[in-house]
């Protein structure tokens, strides 16, 4: 079975990429995961939906273990699990209806009775496969398409606004600003996100300036000093948690806290692949800590030895800091997120 061997190689390659952080960023990871599972579903052999669910779960466990901080991966797997469950239920329902129809109508008399259980199982599996793969295709399209998100967001930006964004790494926000610039004129202040985002901030500002958007890079410490001139803060987190809080790249918590203290709205842009079933019971575990050599140069080895140097890569922002979370299907108040999450996932899949 070359196809099966093939998929195993692909899984191994993807796991390695996740481990080595060769693939990062929620959108990229979500897309890659969806593509992988699409291939997985079509190449693997599974007699019933339950088998498929178990196999996908097992794969999900592997991937989550490979990179526990990349929640987008698990989110996509749970989305697909939910879709398998739904498809399975509808196929069952259709069959039940078919059965009843067959028995009650005149067709029943002419049809060949008892057309082998095995073949209907096979048929079911094929229908299921087609339906699940179609769902995954829809999901892939949804991940790649941020137009609805941008549409909702554009309505919330007015002319001549000063927007502060502390996340220069987000592709979602870059695309969003470029899109809004076609309709509105506004100023963007990008925080430097020292030490992890300095290069990204430069590139982000360059891209926006090139598109004719007035953009300034702001040192992180200056946020409170300028907040009174800012009209909105926009962020794009890594993950939206079920309580409406978010896990975001380091450097976002303070600007959002400042915004709250100045009563400025904080808008959160998150594609639905960023929604997670998790509650932040253990924030510590969700926060990734990075290279402390970025904080103090390793050349300063003497000092480095004596000091405890920490370089957290994430911040946790509670729902109280955020005003609105804009996902693919519109804007939601943070406290309402648990409902949206329940629409997307099945609670049975909380633990893979």
């Amino acid at each position, binding site marked *: 079975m070359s196809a099966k061997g093939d998929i195993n190689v692909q899984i191994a390659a993807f796991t390695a990429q996740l481990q080595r952080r060769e693939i990062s960023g929620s959108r990229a990871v979500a897309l890659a995961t969806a593509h992988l599972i699409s291939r997985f579903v079509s190449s693997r052999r599974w007699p019933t939906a339950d088998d498929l669910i178990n196999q996908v779960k097992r794969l999900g466990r592997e991937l989550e273990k490979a990179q526990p901080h990349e929640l987008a991966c698990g989110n996509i797997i749970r989305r697909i699990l939910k879709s398998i469950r739904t498809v399975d239920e509808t196929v069952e329902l259709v069959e039940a209806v078919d059965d009843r129809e067959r028995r009650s109508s005149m067709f029943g008399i002419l049809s060949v009775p008892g057309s082998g259980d095995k073949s209907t199982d096979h048929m079911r599996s094929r229908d299921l496969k087609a339906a699940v793969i179609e769902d995954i295709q829809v999901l892939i399209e949804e991940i790649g398409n941020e137009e609805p998100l941008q549409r909702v967001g554009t309505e919330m930006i007015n002319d001549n606004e000063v927007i502060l964004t502390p996340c220069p790494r987000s592709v979602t926000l870059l695309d969003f600003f470029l899109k809004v610039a076609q309709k509105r004129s506004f*100023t963007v202040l990008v925080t430097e996100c020292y030490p992890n985002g300095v290069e990204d901030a430069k590139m982000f500002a360059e891209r926006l300036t090139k598109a004719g958007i007035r953009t*300034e890079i702001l040192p*992180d410490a200056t946020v409170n000093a300028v907040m009174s001139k800012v009209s909105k803060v926009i962020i794009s987190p890594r993950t939206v948690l079920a309580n409406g809080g978010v896990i975001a790249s380091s450097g976002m918590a303070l600007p959002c806290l400042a915004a709250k203290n100045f009563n400025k709205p904080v808008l959160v842009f998150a594609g639905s692949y960023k929604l997670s079933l998790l509650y932040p019971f253990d924030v510590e575990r969700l926060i990734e800590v990075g290279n402390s050599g970025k904080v103090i140069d390793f050349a300063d080895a003497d000092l480095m030895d004596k000091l405890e140097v920490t370089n957290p890569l994430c911040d946790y922002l509670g729902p109280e800091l955020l005003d609105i979370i804009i996902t693919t299907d519109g804007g939601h108040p943070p406290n309402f997120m648990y409902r949206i999450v329940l629409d997307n996932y099945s609670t049975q899949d909380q633990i893979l």
Partner: protein
Amino acid sequence: MSKDLTPAQAKALKKQQKQAQRAARKEQGGNVGGAPQASQQQHGSRKHTAVGNVGQSSAPETAAPDRPFAHLDQHKPIVSAADIHPAILNLALQMRRCNVLGSTQRCVAMMEAFSKVIEDYQSPPGTTLGRSLAAHLSRQIEVLKVGRALSVSQGNAIRWLKQHLSAVLDFKDVAAKEELQLAIKSFVRERLEVAAKVIVKSAGTHIRNGDTVLTFGHSSVVYQTLAAARKEGKEFSVICVDTPPLFEGKRSAVELVELEIPTSYILISAVPYLLDTVTTVMVGAHAMVSNGHLYSRVGTSLVAMAAFDRNIPMLVLCETLKFSERIQLDAFSVNEMIPGEGPNSVFYDLTDSKYISKVITEVGALPASSVPVILREYKTQQV
């Protein structure tokens, strides 16, 4: 000329003229019994041109409003003159290069430089030192100001020195020099050194065994407090918070490590991550302004705000020399660009008094709202 106008243009021109007339008439009507008509008309026409000017002048204004600190003065080159003392010139340069940094250090360095200026001063023939020194000092101060804007501590010290000059008006030059130099020495000792000692004693009571103290940037008083607590044998740890481009927190970290105090070093963006372990926040001040806000190194307000959000006490250690009569509401009205850094790099921000648990001074600890009380006490004393 009018032949060249298209009908639409002619119409527009007529409309404009009519509007101008109407405006002029309105002006006359509004100002009943005012100045004579001629001046009224002039006023009207002036107003008209002013309107035209607004359109023009707003163009350069809109070019820079996206830079939040575009209105601040840019640093000018330091130019020397014949009567500028080398010590002053050197200090101006050192301050510009941020080698002499921090309001205490700057104030001490300035007073030492003044002492040298007085030492080397020779009053012109026909006048005494007491009568001619003030002008000479003013010229020195101008150069310092070009180096960097004076700190509040420096401003207060200069005000004191100028007042004290009147005490030596009738002195002979040699005696005057001696008296002034002594006075400067005792001023620095009293208002900064002894003041710091008193503050250290009071602030030290806030450090207990097992505490984690968070400090931002560098402050000599905070350092002395931590060192004294360590000397007393207290077991505590410190988190030094730092921020580019000045990296003053690193200086704190190096000093504390030398005392073998367990020290963490983080950048300001990591504050929310470690804040839950913190028991007290302790910072120094550039100045306390008279409406109770703290004017200090940029980033202080973020740290204070985050601490307030988690109910962690925030102590400001501040000598009364750094109290300012100024009232300030935001970090735009008064601020300073960091030389050689980007267009949005400023030195200071303003910490709301509501984030400050208490201000510890050499005359006692008080709530931030009591800053004007101290200022008034000093005023009445001097009078």
